Each structure stands twice: as C-alpha cells, then as structure tokens.
C-alpha cells in the first residue's frame, strides 16, 4: 500500500481533537438563557409569578420592569402633603399577578372558607383523616390544626363553650370524684364498648389531691377503634372511606372537632345504619376522588358493588369447608362415617383417603447398653499369616491380635488369599504361597502341629499354654525367620558353588520356586517381560530358560546357559535368571488381563541434551573485557529450522533431509553430572584421556602428541593393549567404577548394555568434524574418563592410605568391569570381597583379604584369566611405554579384548614394591601433565587448530593448574566420603 492512499481511507475519529469534524456539521447554536423568554398576549415579557407570590426571578428580563430590577421611587417632598400622607400597604408593592385569582390577594369576590360549602370542607377533612391515620401519633396533627384554627369552630362548639365546656372535657354534667369512678365502673359493668384507656392510670394518682366538694367534668372519652376488618385491603391499609368521601355530612361537625376519631367513630357507631348506603353507593373506591374535582356522586354511580364478586368461588357451599375445594367425587365420599371421624376436611386434588388406617408403629425403647460399652471401635490390624514372618504372627497371636488364620472364617477380610481365590473361582497360583511351603516336610509337620495346638489353645482357654509347644513354635519360627533373612541377603549376592549348605538349599529352593511359578498354564512367554532386552543373546538365553521352565524342566537353568562362558559368569547369570524369573513370574490371569504392557519402554536413564554446548564463559568474559569481539565471543552451531518455518519464510530448507528441529540433541545419562558441566564434549574428553594416559616420564617432551600419533589405526593397538598407569590412580579408577557400578542397573552387565545401546543408537555417535580419528565411544568409557579428571586432591589419599602397603598392581579394564560385577552394590555390607568373588578367584585368594590388597586381588584375577589378553598385556608392558595412547584402546572395544582403564601403568614398568615417595611423585607429575593436556584440548577444540597445541599448552598450563584442582576437589568430595564409608565397612 502506498502511503498516499491511506489518507482517503479513514476511521471515525473520536477523542479530544474535534476541530476537523466540525466543518461538516450544521451550526446549531444553543439559545442563550437571556433569549429564553415568554411573552404574553400583549407582547410583554410575561412573568410567571409576582414578587409576592414567589419572588422575582430577578434580573433585567424577568423583573419588576426596570433594567436594575426595581424602580427607584422618586423623591416626593412631603412638606405640602403631610396631612395626606398615607401609609404604604402591602398591596402597594404587589404585582398585578398577586391580585389575580390565584395570587395571594385576589381582588375578585370569592366565597371565604367560612362560607364555603361543607363539601369542600369534607374534602379537607378526608385528607386530614388519611394523614392522621398515617401519622405516628394518631390524631395529633389534626387536633393541633383544629386548635390553631379557631375560626373554623362550628356553632355547636361555640355554644358548648358558652355553656362552660372546655376543650378536652367530656360532655355531660359535672361529677364528683367517687361518682365518676362509679360511673366508669358502671360503664364497665355494662360491658360498654367504651373502655378506659391510658388516662385512667393518672386518675389513680390524683386521688389523694381530690377534695370532696370539687366536681369534675366527665372524661372525654376517646373511643377505641374496634373496627373489624371487613375490606379486602392489605393489613394496615385503608382506602378512602366512601362515607367520608361521598356520604352525608351528619357527623361532619363532630369530625371537624375530633379528627382522629372521625373515621373510627363513624365505623363504630354509624357503620350499621350507613350499611345500606354503602351497599348501593360504594363505587370507584380504589380510585378515590380527585383532589381538584368537585365531588359528583354521579361519576361513580355507574359502578355498584353488585358488579363485583365479593366472595371467592361463587356461593358459599354451606358445607363448612371454607376454602377447601376437592373434586366432587371425593367430596361425595364424605358421607362415609368412618372417614368423617378420621378427616373432616376436603381432600386435596389428586389425593385419596387411605382405605385403611395405618397401624401406628410401636416404638421400642433402645436396648440398655452394657456398662463398659465404649462407642468407639478400634480396628486391629488384620494380618495374614502367610505374608508375615512367623515371629510376628506368633507375637500377634499371643497378644490377642487378629491373625486371619485363627479368626473365624466369616468376614471377607478374615479369609486368606487362597480362600478368596477359591470363592472367586480363579485358578490357583503356582508356586509356594507362603513360607511354610518352603520349609522341609518335617518342619512343616511340626509347625502344623503347633498351629493346631495353638488353635486348640484359643478355643479352650483353659489349657492355654503347653510350654513345650510354645517353645517349639518360637524356635521354629526363629529358624524360619533366620532363613528368610539369610535368603534375602543372599539373593542379592551371587551364589557360588562353595557356599554353605543353607544357602545352597536356598538357591535350590529359589529355582524350585521359579519352576513352580513358570510351569503353570497361565504363563505366556510372548507377553512376559524381557528383562535382558538390551542384550539380545542374554535375552535369548533367558527365553530359553523360561521356556524350559514352562515345560517343567528341572535343570532348565544349567542347560540354557551358554557353555562357552566362564564358570563364574555362568554362575552369575544363572543367579540372575532365577531371580528374574521369580521377579517377573506370570501374574494371575485375572490380574494380567487388566493390565497391558506399555507400548514404549520409556528410557528413563537418559535425557536429551543438546549436542553442542557453549563453551566456558570465562574466556569469553575475558575477551569481552578486552573488547576482542569476534572469534573469541562468537560461536556457531547447527540449527535446524522447522520445515514449516522455512516455508513461511519463503526459504528453502537448509537441511532437506533431516528431521531434527532446533539444535541437534543427543542422549545422555540422566543423572550424570556432566550434563551440567561445560566440558562434556566427548572428543574433548577423549583427548584428555590421551593425555592422562601418558606416562610421567614423557611429561617434559611431548613427542607423541602430534596428529600422526592420534591417527594410528586401530590395528596398531594390539601391540600396546595395556598401558602404564599409576597404581594409585588405577585403584582409584577401580573404586570409582565400583561406585558407578552400584549406581548402574542391578544385573550388573553394564558393559554389554552400553555397547548394545551404543550400537543401536546412532545419536550417540559424536559427529565432530575435526575428530575423525577417534571413533564413537561408548558412554561408559566416556564416563570413566570423565571421572578420571575429577580427582580428589592428593593429601586426602595420603591420609587414607597412609597405612596401606606399597604394593602396586595393574589391572585391565576388563578387570575393573569384573569388579563392577562382583560388587554390584557398594552398600552391601556383608561378604565383602571373599564371598563375592568368583570360584577361580577365590581359589587363588590369600586367606584373609585385606582392604589394602584389593588392587592386588584384581591383579590376580587378571593373571588367572585364561584368555590371550594377559599375554598381550605383558607384551605391551614392555613395549608400550614409548607411546601409549588411550584413544586407540577405546576403538578396540568392539572387536577385541578390552583395554585397561585410562591412566594405567603396567606392572612390569612399575614393580610391585616401590617406595611411597616415588609413587607420589610420579602421581603428581602425571596429574599435572594431564591438566596441561586438558587445557590444551579445550583450546584445541575451541579453535580447531591442532598444530598450535603444543606451544600453547606449554605456556598456559601452569596457571590453570590450580583452578582445575580446586574444581576437582569440589566435585569429588561426596564420592570420597562414600568411598571412605565403604572402606570402613569392609574393615
């Protein structure tokens, strides 16, 4: 749209500036006030009222006629006309209008009030009556008015006054005190309608003052209004009384005198005789008579009372049922004598009388409560004996608690699960339902005995305790509980063959349970949970095992395991399978039908994290301070706009093939600390690992840091499988891996999980353009290496291990993994290392494994391994010192034996016994070196300039050392604490 167009198109303007719109409107001048005048017929400005009837409107235009509003009187000398001086009368100042008919001094001859017709007076009276009735004090205002206007008193009143009557007195002969009292008494006796009202009390008071010879005028009686309510007005409302309005003026004189009573008295006394008149003449009652109209009875004569219905619903039926109108067919039944007795009214529409009288309910008194009744019920916990340990059951039993076995079998809650199942008709659960079934037959018999004995005890309280029985029961319960306890702990630990017999029986009982559970008809393999879905082979083995279980194969476990695995692995796996089979045994058919399996297995272990994260802010901040904007402050990421967004922006999609939107994301461990650190880039980490794995001897010269070294093919690794590592760091990494293993999934097959996970998930692969030489690594390795950099300070370790031996050992990564598997839970207190170890290991064990020798143990396991790995390791121990590179080891993962963890020192290089000092020194060196590398890597990543790395690192390494050390201290304190705890536990 061009800019000139929109001046044509316009909106309605409203608001303050009105000027441009005024041109369109016709001029409408408001008439000013001084022009708003009225003129009379003669063309003069008309005044609406004179000065005396309402005052002037004042001013020039509506006043006495002059501009000033008044005409100043001209001076007239009175010297000559003193005699003829006249006083000014009000009329002199009056206007013409004041003398007109409606002025205050009308000049025309009109009848005065005194001589005005009575009717006019009646009108006023009527209004007054109405007013007086509405007034608070009835009659008061009217009375006052009468007193104030004496001119209005009638001739009768005048006559009465002449005769000595005074206002307020009654009419009649004067009375003595006693007489008067008698008189009133007589009046009372006769039941006259003139009761004595409030003035009588005062009468009693002046009894004392009354002398004998004084007579009193009779009391002026104010008749009380006994008017019955005959009209259909609302309560308290009184329309204009037609008698007063239209009727004759018979009582009018009296009314004039006593206004209050006028209405009432008339209705009291004159009501009856005027009744005839009322019948015919009442008309237009509700409308009253207009105040300004002359009463003309003819107006209302058209209307008569006969035109109105005075009664609801026609003639009174005469049956005495006022207002009740039932249909005739019901009212006809009224003749029934019986009903007459019961109900005398009319029956409402739609209702009938009941044919027979309902019997009155007999209300019995409530039962007497026993004395010790408490109105509160206390529910005892209902315990199923099969779910509760025998000891508790026993305790409950003795303490009068509810035990469902012993409870009478009526209530639903008192039934046990099997009974309820029978009632519902469900198929019985396979497998033992209680602990008792797991007991030996002999034990069971004994328990049954005891139980029956206990039952009898309960029934007959007399032979309550046979001491031996009870003792036996307690003993057996204890035994069972102990067994359960031990089984609970051992179920978490692997079951080596060399275990003691109870544990062995326990294991066998577990397998038995599994067998029982799975051999049932309800088990459906397709629907069952796949606990090892992440490792296909293992899952396959598990499936096989389950299938065999279902067939009822006794040695399902042994046959389904892979024979190529080591015995230890087999043992572990068998244990896993048994536990999994028990854990995921098929649920009841009724139950399982109600639940469906989730369609998507939610991967709760990982979260999506944006792949590219911004670098550390510190150097940027520094750059900003130096105003070096540009490369230092700029970061560029891939960003995928939504397809629709591109479309809307009329822009071709920059990534036509990709389906991602926004920043590319990758999955990371959910609770990993590294999600929130800025150094998470895996390639970076790998380089750190490289530097970390460097032997301390090569710290001064950095010959192998060139890209050529990094680009070694994976096949080179065979020669240098194991790498030198500081023994202490090796130990630390192991302990750390223990910790991480504890955190990981219980089956303990972390490495397999990870590898499969990695291969399945393409997102894990880090597509860093400048990192072609490093292959995608698995998360576990990443993590391990990350952990490598968060290392607690030296002194702490010194403090911890001050007393430990100087033994050094090496271990491979495989080893550390085994360690993970061996100790799946660090919190496990019992069977520290000896029991958890594999049979082959334990065979080689020194009799009392000390904590300080844990690394040693691991070393032994490496030695014991029959694979070729150890040999290669030994080979490389001699050869790999020159240029060990960790990253190649990582590549190895998929198709070769595993590599030792980072920072590894071969045992050949660092013999078992070394001086503590030297170790520390080495360690320090290595650490420092590593830090340098880390820094370098960061820079390298940031700038993508590989060549510069060496030079830079030398210059900048020293100052950053302390920082990173601080950081590591912060991070790892909690971890350290945990480790300390473990160690103390083991001791």
């Amino acid at each position: 749209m061009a800019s000139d167009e929109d001046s044509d198109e316009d909106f309605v303007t409203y608001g303050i500036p009105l000027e441009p719109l005024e041109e369109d409107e016709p001029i409408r001048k408001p008439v000013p006030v001084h022009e708003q005048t009225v003129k009379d017929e003669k063309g003069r400005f008309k005044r609406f009222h004179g000065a005396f009837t309402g005052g002037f409107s004042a001013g020039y235009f509506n006043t006495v006629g002059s501009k000033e509003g008044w005409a100043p009187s001209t001076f007239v000398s009175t010297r000559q006309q003193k005699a003829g001086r006249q006083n000014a009368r009000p009329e002199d100042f009056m206007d013409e209008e004041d003398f007109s008919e409606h002025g205050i001094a009308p000049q025309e001859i009109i009848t005065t009030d005194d001589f005005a017709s009575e009717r006019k007076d009646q009108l006023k009276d009527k209004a007054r009556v109405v007013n007086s009735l509405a007034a608070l004090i009835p009659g008061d205002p009217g009375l006052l008015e009468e007193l104030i206007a004496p001119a209005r008193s009638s001739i009768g009143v005048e006559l009465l006054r002449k005769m000595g009557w005074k206002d307020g007195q009654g009419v009649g002969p004067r009375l003595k005190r006693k007489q008067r009292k008698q008189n009133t008494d007589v009046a009372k006796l006769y039941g006259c309608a003139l009761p004595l009202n409030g003035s009588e009390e005062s009468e009693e008071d002046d009894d004392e003052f009354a002398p004998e010879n004084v007579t009193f005028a009779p009391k002026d009686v104010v008749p009380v209004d006994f008017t019955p309510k005959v009209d259909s007005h609302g309560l308290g409302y009184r329309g204009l009384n037609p008698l007063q309005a239209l009727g004759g003026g018979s009582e009018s004189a009296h009314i004039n005198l006593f206004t209050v009573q006028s209405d009432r008295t008339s209705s009291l006394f004159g009501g009856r005789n005027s009744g005839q008149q009322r019948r015919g003449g009442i008309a237009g009652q509700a409308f009253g008579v207009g105040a300004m109209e002359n009463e003309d009875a003819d107006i209302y004569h058209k209307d008569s009372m006969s035109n109105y219905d005075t009664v609801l619903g026609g003639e009174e039926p005469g049956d005495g049922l006022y207002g009740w109108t039932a249909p005739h067919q019901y009212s006809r039944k009224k003749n029934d004598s019986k009903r007459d007795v019961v109900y005398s009214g009319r029956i409402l529409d739609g209702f009938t009388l009941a044919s027979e009288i309902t019997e009155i309910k007999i209300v019995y008194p409530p039962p007497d409560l026993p004395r010790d009744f408490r109105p509160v019920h206390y529910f005892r916990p209902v315990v199923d004996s099969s779910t509760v340990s025998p000891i508790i059951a026993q305790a409950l039993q003795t303490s009068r608690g509810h035990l469902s076995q012993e409870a009478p079998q009526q209530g639903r809650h008192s039934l046990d699960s099997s009974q309820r199942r029978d009632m519902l008709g469900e198929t019985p659960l396979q497998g033992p339902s209680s602990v008792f079934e797991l007991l030996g037959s002999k034990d069971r018999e004994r328990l049954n005995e005891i139980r029956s004995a206990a039952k009898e005890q309960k029934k007959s309280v007399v032979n309550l305790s046979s001491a031996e029985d009870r003792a036996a029961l307690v003993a057996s319960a204890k035994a069972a509980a102990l067994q359960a306890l031990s089984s609970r702990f051992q179920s978490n630990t692997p079951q080596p063959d060399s275990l003691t017999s109870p544990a062995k029986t326990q294991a066998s009982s577990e397998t038995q349970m599994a067998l029982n559970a799975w051999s049932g008809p309800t088990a459906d393999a397709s629907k069952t949970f796949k606990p090892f879905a992440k490792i296909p082979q293992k899952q396959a083995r598990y499936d096989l095992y389950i299938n065999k279980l279902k067939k009822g194969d006794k040695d399902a476990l042994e046959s389904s395991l892979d024979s190529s695995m080591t015995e230890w692995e087999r043992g572990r796996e068998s244990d896993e399978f048994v536990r999994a089979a028990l854990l995921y045994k098929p649920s009841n058919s009724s139950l399982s039908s109600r639940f469906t399996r989730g369609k998507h297995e939610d991967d709760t272990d990982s979260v999506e994290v944006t792949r590219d994260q911004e670098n550390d802010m510190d150097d940027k901040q520094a750059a900003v301070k130096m105003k070096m904007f540009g490369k230092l402050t700029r970061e560029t990421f891939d960003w995928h706009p939504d397809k629709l967004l591109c479309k809307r922006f009329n822009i071709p999609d920059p990534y036509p093939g990709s389906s991602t939107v926004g920043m590319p994301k990758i999955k990371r461990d959910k609770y990993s600390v590294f999600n929130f650190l800025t150094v998470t880039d895996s390639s970076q980490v790998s380089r750190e690992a490289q530097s970390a794995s460097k032997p301390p001897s090569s710290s001064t010269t950095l010959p192998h840091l060139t890209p050529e070294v990094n680009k070694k093919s994976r096949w080179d690794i065979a020669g240098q499988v194991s790498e030198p590592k500081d023994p202490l760091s090796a130990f630390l990494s192991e302990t750390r891996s223990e910790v991480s293993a504890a955190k990981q999934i219980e089956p303990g097959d972390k490495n397999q999980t990870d590898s499969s996970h990695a291969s399945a998930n393409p997102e894990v692969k880090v597509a860093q353009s400048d990192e072609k030489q490093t292959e995608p690594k698995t998360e576990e390795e990443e993590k391990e290496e990350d952990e490598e950099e968060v290392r607690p300070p030296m002194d702490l370790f010194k403090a911890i291990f001050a007393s430990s031996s100087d033994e050094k050992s090496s271990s491979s990564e495989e080893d550390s993994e085994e360690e993970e598997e061996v100790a799946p839970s660090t919190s496990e207190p019992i069977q520290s290392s000896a029991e958890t170890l594999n049979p082959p290991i334990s065979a080689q064990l020194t009799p009392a494994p000390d904590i300080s020798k844990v690394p040693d143990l691991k070393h032994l396991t490496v030695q014991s391994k029959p694979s070729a790995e150890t040999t290669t390791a030994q080979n490389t121990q001699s050869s790999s010192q020159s240029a060990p590179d960790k990253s190649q080891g990582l590549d190895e993962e998929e198709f070769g034996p595993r590599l030792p963890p980072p920072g590894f020192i071969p045992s050949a290089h660092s013999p078992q016994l070394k001086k503590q000092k030297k170790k520390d020194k080495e360690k320090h060196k290595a650490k420092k070196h590593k830090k340098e590398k880390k820094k370098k890597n960061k820079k390298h990543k940031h700038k993508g300039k590989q060549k510069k790395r060496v030079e830079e690192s030398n210059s900048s390494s020293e100052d950053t050392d302390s920082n990173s050390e601080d950081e590591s201290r912060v991070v790892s304190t909690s971890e350290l604490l945990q480790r300390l705890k473990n160690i103390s536990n083991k001791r």
Partner: protein
Amino acid sequence: MAFPQPRPQAPQLPQHLLRTVECQQGAVRAVRFNADGNYVLTCGGDKSLKLWSVSRGTLLKTYTGHGYEVLDVDCSYDNSQLCSCSSDKTVILWDVGSGQVTRKLRGHAGKVNCVQFNEEATVMLSGSIDGTVRCWDTRSRQMKPIQILDEAQDGISSLKVSEHELLTGSVDGRVRRYDLRMGQLNVDFIGSPITCVCFSRDGQCTLSSSLDSTVRLLDKSSGEMLGEHTHSELFRRWPCLLLGSGGGLPDFKDACWESCCPITVLPPNGAPPFDCYGGVCSGVGGGARGCSCGRQLSSAC
C-alpha cells in the same frame, strides 16, 4: 508479493517535535510505527493498544483484549494485522479494521517482551521472559507454535526479524542470530544483559545495547565489533532509546554517534532521540517517543 517501499528518505535526523499526543492509557510501554510510518501504535499500561494517526494526532482505534500491560506491538506490512504481546503471557493477532482479536496465542510461560512479524506477516515471533522465542503461524489455525527456540538461558528482551534471519537479545548476555537460510545459529557473547538488538539498515551488522550502557555494532558475519558507544545514562535502556525515553536525558548532543551504517541518535533541543535505521519496520517514519513516565506519546518528523 509487493512490499511497501520504505519512504525514500535522506538519512537525516528528525529535528523538531511534530506533535505530542496524550495517550491516556497509563504508562506507554511501546510506541511503534506501522510499515509506512503514517500511523503509530502505542502500547499502554492499561491493557489497551491504540492506533493514532501521525499526521493529525488523532486516535483512530483502541484495541482491548489483553489481560495485562501490552508490551510490544508490530504491524504487518500491509497494515491489515497487528500482533501484540503482553504481560499476560499471550500474543494476540488483531484485525486492524475491525479491532477484533483474530487469534490469541498462549504458550509462553512468562510475560512476552517482544513480538515481530516476519516480512510477509506469515509468522509471528515472540520472545518472552521465559527464555524462549516462539514462532506462531498466522496462516493456520494451529494454536501451537511452529517452533520454539529455547537456546537462550534467560529471558528474551528483544527480537528482530529480517528476511531470513532472526536476531534475539537475551538477558543471558548473548545475541543470537538464527540464520534460516544457512541453518545456523550464531551466538555472540556480549556479557552484559542485552536490552535491545537491531539490524543495521544494510543488513550487514547487528546492533545491540546492553545494560552496561553500551551500544555495540557487530559485524554480522564475523562477530567482530565495528563500533561501540557508551553513555552513562543514554543506553541504559535501549528500547527506551528506540522509542525515545522521555524525560530529561542529559547531553544528547554528545550522544550522536554514527558508524558505517546510519545509526544515529540525536536529540534536538532536548527532544528524545530517534532510531534511524532498519528501514522497513522500525518506526523511522519520523521517530517516535513514548514516555514511559510521562504517559504521552510524541512523534516527531
């Protein structure tokens, strides 16, 4: 599609105050010209949005429908639609003629600081204090945003859209430029919380003001700084600057600052400064000021 040509205009500074309008809508939160600069929209603290004629200074229409203060408004290229955002977390698309709410878009988790149409008014982009920029489709009835840009780690304070780029300034001290054509995100670290961002007229530079009272002109492609100006009070609030913060900002004459692109800040005789860049959508028809304190809008040409 024919775009309105920006009025041919020499890059000269507005020199005199043309008109002062009492908006009577509480604090004026934002003042925006329409595409051609003939109309002015003011966002009021009384939840209303008012359309004024610049030439006559008359009120043309009042748009009510927000539940809280209106914080920003933008006019589509064809003057047919308005989009506004408010503290009530909503973005509203208005029909200019009828004054009706065409679409009310909820989704932001906090108050929405800034809103812009893209060039064809097919997308509304709103930046919120919740740190996201949401791209709302005006063409479909979809009430969900097309895309949510949640890269910012703090609230978005300012937003500009060009033909294929989106420039956001965030309180986390970064200026992000989303290049749709390249599929790239450039993050420039400024350090201090960004209050306002802008493209230069030639589209080669970005301009950002931050809470450290500095306006920086950065090269768009490399991120290098081309120019910088610091003034103690002047650039404290760049949005205010763009609108011209009323009141007595001291020494504006000193603040005249020019660079390769015509960014100019000039306060003639103590009048508010104006933004004279950005061509199409910015309020450079004459420059406008809304005094957040003075409750009035002045426009000057």
